[in-house]
Structures are given as C-alpha cells and as structure tokens.
C-alpha cells in the first residue's frame, strides 16, 4: 500500500556547501540519501515530494559539519499481510517462484501454486497447467496475495500465494510472441 507521509531526518552537510545554494544542496543530498531506502516501520521510500521545513543547523565540534533537522514529505510503499499485489516474476524453480512488486521481493512456494499447475524444467523453467493454457515463467505478470511479511531494519520480504480466487497470471510474455 502507498502512503504520503511527513518524515524527519538529520542531514549532515560539509562546510564547503555553505553559501547561497545551501538549501538546494541540502535537498539534493536528502533525495540522494533517502529515496530508494527501506525502513521496517514505514516501508520503502519511493519519492520525496517536498521539503516542509529545514531547522537551525547545529555545528559539530571538531569536524565543522553542520547537522540540519529536515522535515520532508514522501511517498512510501509498505506491503501488508492479506494485500493483493501485481508483480513480475523474476525467477522460477521447483521450489516455487520469485516475483517483484516494485522494490518488494515476494516468494511464492510451490504448494501455494494451484494444484493443476506443474513445474516444467528446461530452457525456460515454468509452471504450466495440464492443458498448457496458462504458463508462469520469467517476466510473467501475476496477481498474488501476501500471506506473510518479514520486516527487517533495511528490507521487507514477503511470501505470497496465487492459490485463491481471481489470482494468477494476468499477462504472459510467451503468449505475446
């Protein structure tokens, strides 16, 4: 799920950046440091949409660096248990398949894949129905349901299932060719 929230961060800036473009330097450093990171509490920071407030700088003794408290608005993505996501398959093996929904890695184990789909090894490993009408392989788009999340300090890993109503392949790259 996506959220638009206000976060705060202490930014350290080198004295060489002090000048008329101090604020611009601070914002560009903030974007570089924060965008694409993940925190267990808020999820993945997708993009910074604006800087609300830059507080008074605090000079650090000995180094000359200045710490600025910065409040910024950002879009974050946090997956939840029970959420339905659309993801792209990145790897298929006999244990199941891995998929990516933006920055989130999702693993769907083979016993959470419908029973009528069987693993086919070969040049392009895939899960195929007995009649061959549906195929899950690398770069396939699937709709899946998250059944569990593991939240670490720097990453979020999910377990998904396609063994439920209205879940499964939504676009097959092999069919387009």
């Amino acid at each position: 799920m996506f959220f638009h929230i206000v976060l705060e961060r202490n930014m350290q800036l080198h004295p060489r950046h002090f000048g008329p473009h101090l604020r611009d330097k601070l914002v560009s450093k903030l974007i570089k440091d924060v965008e694409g990171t993940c925190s267990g509490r808020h999820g993945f920071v997708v993009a910074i949409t604006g800087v609300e407030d830059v507080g008074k700088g605090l000079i650090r003794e000995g180094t000359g660096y200045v710490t600025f408290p910065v409040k910024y608005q950002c879009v974050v993505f946090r997956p939840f248990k029970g959420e339905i996501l659309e993801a792209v398959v990145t790897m298929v093996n006999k244990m199941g398949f891995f998929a990516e929904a933006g920055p989130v890695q999702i693993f769907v184990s083979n016993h959470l894949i419908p029973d009528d789909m069987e693993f086919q090894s070969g040049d392009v490993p895939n899960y195929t129905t007995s009649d061959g009408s549906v195929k899950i392989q690398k770069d396939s788009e699937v709709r899946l349901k998250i059944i569990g999340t593991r939240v670490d300090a720097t990453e979020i890993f999910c377990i998904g299932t396609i063994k439920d109503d209205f879940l499964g392949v939504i676009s097959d790259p092999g069919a387009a060719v």
Partner: protein
Amino acid sequence: MGSMEPFNRLVRLAARAFYDDISMKGDNQPKTSRGDNRGMAVVVLDALTRRQWVREEDLAKALKLHSKQLRRILRFFEEEKLVTRDHRKESAKGAKIYSAAAAAAGDGQSITKEGEEKVKMHTHSYCCLDYAQICDVVRYRIHRMKKKLKDELDSRNTIQHYICPNCKKRYSAFDALQLISYTDEYFHCENCNGELVAESDKLASEEMGDGDDNARKRRREKLKDMQQRIDEQLKPLQAQLNRVKDLPAPEFGSLQSWERANIGAFGTADPSAADSSRNPQGQYGTPMPYLGETKVEVALSGTGVKDEGAESGTNGNGLKVLPPWMIKQGMNLTKEQRGETSNSSNLDEKSEVKDEKKQDSKEDEKSIQDEYIKAYYEALRKRQDEEEAKRKIQQEGDTFASASHSERQVGMKSKREDDDEGVEWEEEQPAGNTAETYKLADLNVEAQESGDEEDEIDWEEG
C-alpha cells in the same frame, strides 16, 4: 438425575474419542508394555461421571489405582479443562463431614465413628467434572481438528518449511532469498550446503515411497481420506453435542457449597454438629471467640487537635503565650500565658520582660569578648615586631640562598602559627554576637593578606 445422562454420555464418548490411547507415565518411567496404562484416562472419566465431588484418595481406592498415578491423570484433565479440582487442609472431623455429604449425595459411603479425632491437619484434594466447560472444550477441539485439516488440504496461508536432509536444520519460506543458489536455482543449506527438501514433500516421500513432484497430490489424497474418516468417527460425538446444546449443564458449584447443600438434605447426620467446626469463611478450624459488638467513639471536642495558626514552639494542648505588648494591667492571665514556664524561652529576647540572670550572663559574655579582642591585637603586634626583627636579620645575612631558605622556613612557620591561632580562637570563642565573630574573621584575613604581600616583596628583592 435424568438431565445428567446426556452429559455423562457425552463425556464417555469424548473420552473414547480423544483420550483412549493416552499413556499417563512419568517422565522418568520407561514406556514398556508391561506397565502400560493406556485407557486409564477413559476409566477415570467414566468413574467421575458416576460421582459428583469426590476425594481423590477415595477415587483411587475405588478404582484400585495408586494415588500418585490418579493425581497425574487428574492434573492432565485439569489442564484439558475437563475437571475442576479443589485442595483443602482439614482435620479428621472435616473428612467426616465430607463423607456425610458424599453419603447424602448417594455415594453409598457410611460415616465411620472414631473415638479420638486427631487435630493434625492434612491437605486433601477433591475433584469433579465441569460439564459446562466439557461441552465447550469438545466442540472447540472438533472445530480445530477440522479447520487444521481443511487448511492443510487447501494449502492456504500456510508458510512452507524446508529441511536439510544432512544436518536436519529447518528453514522457513522467509529465508528463501538467503537460501537460493543462483547456480542451480535450488535452496541450499547454509551449514552443509546440502539441497533442501520441502517439509511436506519429505513427509509424503517417507509415507508413500518416492518423493517426486507428484508427492503433493498423494499427500492431498491422504488428507482427504483422513478428513472423511474424522467426519465418520466423530458423527456420534457431534450428534450428542447437538443433543446437549440446548440443555442446561449440571453444576455442582464449589466444594463447600456442594457439601452444605448435601448435608442439609441428609437427615441422619447432624448438620449442626457438622457446621459447628466451620468458621464463617466456610473452612474447618477453630472459630473466633465472640467479643461483643465493636463500639467506635469519635472525639469531636478538638482538644487534641493543634490549631493551624499555632506557633511551632507552643504545645497544641497548652494556652497560647501572649506577647508582652498585649499584656496589660488588670488582666487575669495564667502563668503559661505570661510566658513564665519553660515554653516561654522561645520568646523574643528584646521583649521588656527580662530575667536578671539573663542580663548577668550577657554582661559576662561581653567582657569575655572584649578580653579576647585585646589579647588578639596584642598577639598581632607581637608577630609584626618579630617579623621586622627577622627581616633585619635577613638583610644582615651573607648569601641570598641562605636568606631565602630561612625566609621560606619563616613563611611556613608563620602560616602554621596563623592556622593554629585561628583554630584556638574559634574553639574558645563562646556563642555570642555574630557581628563580633565576623570582625575577628576579617582581621584574620587581613593578617594573612599582609603576610602574603610581604612574601611577594621579598621575592622581588631577591
């Protein structure tokens, strides 16, 4: 007792369905076939359906079981929420009352007469079936069994686990990212690098034979078969639960209330004799002696209460000491109000009413202080004279080194004398006017300062 029968039937069915193969052995006992006591749980539950509250020792005798073994079974049933237990310290008389109640309830036990009853207290345990809770427990247990099988069958929301066949380490699907090997795209153990096997597939391969990709289908068939068998076997229990659902569950209440009710209903036993040894809390023992009604007296006169406006020096119960400016001629005052007692010592010393003794003592103090001041000034003059004499000697000295050395010694000595004198003055000084003590201290400081200045001058000369 007619309403009890469906519940008793439910208990017997539940016992045979869930507890017939449970072996109640201690942890340190070997699980051999010789001492196997499987099915004992069913026997105990059956026996409890024929009784209400029963003492565990009596039940053990009736079932020809060792009391320790029975206690283990009952503890297990208490954890399973089928049985309610009560532990109570009681004498032989208390036990006799219980047996009377049990006989009244139709247990067929007669009251044994003992000539001498021991006063020694023993802890006795009692137990009975909790029918209301048994219904809930059985219903919940069946629901959980069916739900677990259904979830296994649907494989919904179940997180896959993987086992390393070599080192037997278990991993969950959450570890997939760390375990995946990009060479062969399989999961490998972090310890021994062995290829991991999905737990359900491993079980299927053990039970069915080869653990190929179709093992899931075999497992699914096995689960379906199990589900059918469970539905079949639990049909009578389910039917009995439905029958019992609308009936009010029999309740025996607590052990004490049950005893009271049954003794009241029992004609031959003397209830007054039984209840005579009970205290109001329903426990057996010596009752508290009657000491009459408690009377509470509240003193509202306020004599013992200290006024808020009263000074800290005066007692709360005594009269307030009047200040001298309030005392006028013709007033009828007590000695306390005049301030003639020991309490009046806290009054201001500047008041017009003064004792002669106080005046004498003050005059003595002043004269002593004057003498001290004179002595102090004399000592200062002497010291200055000595220092001047020493300075002359130093100037007459041959070398600067010897002079400076002697000078240092002199300085040290003078400082020491200062300290000593200061201490002496402080010790001998009586508690008098503070202003004069400050004067002395100031003088002391001045003297030290002057000494320091002289030292500095000497160093400059050198």
